[in-house]
């Protein structure tokens, strides 16, 4: 739920503005852009000069539960030829604060999430490592934003992520600026992610430490099209290098059984026999994603429709189309419900296989990861948001939401996601 005050019946108070004036308004907007910072948001500087003690402006609390079933050919938790189990449960409590500093130009958005994960990887690793059972992961993510006199926002993003086999840090910068009386907002951000992790092989042994680097650049646009219509668009470029494989993922190789397990052709489990080779990925990956969102509000019925489309392409020859739709309906003055549907259709990477007959040369990429396979996924979701009426001593707006999502993939993966959240604007 977006932490805004609920609209007061969302109707009567509407101020009728002038009707769209065609040509001179357009020229005025062009001149406004040309005028640059001095012409934008003239009232803001004075307010920003007033110093106050640091203050918590917003608080969000959320608990999310992921319950996953499925089978994939990269997993050893099954017969030698696969597919193995992908059973997984995640409990994720998270908290986020927005703090405005004494110097009101600065705000800090601080998010902390903790994941308690059961069976994070194939269960077979537990023979020599505890990397896959009851793993805990945590992440701290801080965005510090500075607002200039002209209303331009500069931001720094920094934080870290840790879990048993992985340590990760990230740092980024961002810029956002409103144009034409904030009818248009353009933003850009660039981020660098550094991962360091134990190179755990499919047998559970970790010999060396591996590293992965990610650079991500994103540009986005939000455009007001009418008093009830909003458009969002973004393009993101991501470049990765280093050890890109999920190191404990494996690929079934028929020859390997003959070579390494001649005495046990009737083996029933993939755990004990090295009849599988580790997956191999190219050393770099370049990814492009374009997305569009169109929001339309119908004041008469107090309904909002949100249409989305995303196109993705990368140099692993993976392409994906992702259309989505969300419908919001207000029920009275203090509650609304949301239903969503999302479809994801991806082609899979060019080196995906469920298994090979013979050994593949070492320098050729190979994976049986079901996430990189061709598949289509359907996701249905519903949520209800209620704005709470508290005692007078509790200032600000409070809201409670509860939601459920069902994610189902054509290659045998099903996930149920339950979440409950609380938000407060002080």
């Amino acid at each position, binding site marked *: 739920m977006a932490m805004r005050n609920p609209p007061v019946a969302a109707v009567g108070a509407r101020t009728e503005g002038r009707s769209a004036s065609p040509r001179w308004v357009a020229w005025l907007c062009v001149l406004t852009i040309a005028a640059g910072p001095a012409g934008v948001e003239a009232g803001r500087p004075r307010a920003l000069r007033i110093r106050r003690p640091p203050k918590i402006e917003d608080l969000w609390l959320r608990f999310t539960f992921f319950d996953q079933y499925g089978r994939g050919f990269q997993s050893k938790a099954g017969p030698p030829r696969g597919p193995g189990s992908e059973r997984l449960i995640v409990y994720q409590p998270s908290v986020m604060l927005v703090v405005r500093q004494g110097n009101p130009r600065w705000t800090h958005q601080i998010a902390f999430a903790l994941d308690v994960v059961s069976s994070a990887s194939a269960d077979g690793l537990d023979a020599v490592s505890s990397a896959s059972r009851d793993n805990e992961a945590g992440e701290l993510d801080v965005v510090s934003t500075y607002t200039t006199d002209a209303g331009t926002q500069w931001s720094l993003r920094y934080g870290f992520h840790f879990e048993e086999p992985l340590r990760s840090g990230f740092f980024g910068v961002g810029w956002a600026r409103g144009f034409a009386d904030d009818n248009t907002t353009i933003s850009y951000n660039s981020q660098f*992610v550094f991962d360091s992790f134990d190179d755990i092989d499919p047998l559970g042994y970790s010999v060396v430490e591996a590293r992965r680097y990610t650079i991500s650049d994103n540009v986005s*646009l939000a455009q007001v099209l009418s008093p009830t219509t909003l458009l969002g668009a973004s393009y993101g470029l991501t470049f990765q290098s280093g050890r890109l494989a999920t190191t404990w993922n494996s690929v079934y190789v028929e020859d390997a059984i003959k070579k390494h397990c001649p005495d046990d052709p009737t083996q029933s489990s993939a755990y004990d026999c090295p009849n599988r080779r580790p997956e191999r990925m190219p050393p770099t990956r370049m990814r492009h994603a374009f997305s569009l969102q169109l929001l339309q509000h119908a004041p008469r019925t107090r309904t909002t429709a949100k249409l989305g489309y995303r196109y993705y392409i990368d140099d692993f020859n993976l392409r994906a189309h992702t259309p989505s739709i969300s419908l919001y309906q207000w029920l009275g003055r203090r509650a609304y419900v949301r239903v969503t549907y999302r479809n994801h259709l991806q082609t899979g990477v060019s080196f995906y296989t469920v298994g090979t007959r013979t050994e593949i040369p070492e320098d050729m990429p190979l994976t049986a990861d079901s996430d990189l396979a061709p598949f289509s996924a359907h996701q249905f979701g519903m949520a209800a948001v209620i704005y709470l009426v508290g005692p007078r001593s509790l200032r600000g707006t409070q809201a409670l939401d509860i939601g459920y999502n069902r994610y189902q993939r054509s290659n045998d993966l099903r996930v149920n996601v339950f979440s409950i959240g609380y938000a407060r604007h002080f």
Partner: protein
Amino acid sequence: MLRSRFFVRSSRSILLAGLVASACAVVDQNRREYLADPTMQLQDDPLEARAGPKLWTSREGAAGGDAKPAGGGCGCSN
């Protein structure tokens, strides 16, 4: 080289589209009541916006973009 040219072109196109579109904007501040409705935000609750896509970024090969970094942190290759 080709890819950086592609990125520059795409970024330019989005910036240009933004500038052109802003020149057509005619919605005054006092006519944006419906745009301030909680259901009319490009992003819902920020924590929900983090938790929900976690499923997609860890279980779909097509993560990245969307003004968020991809590939780091989740302990997986997606």
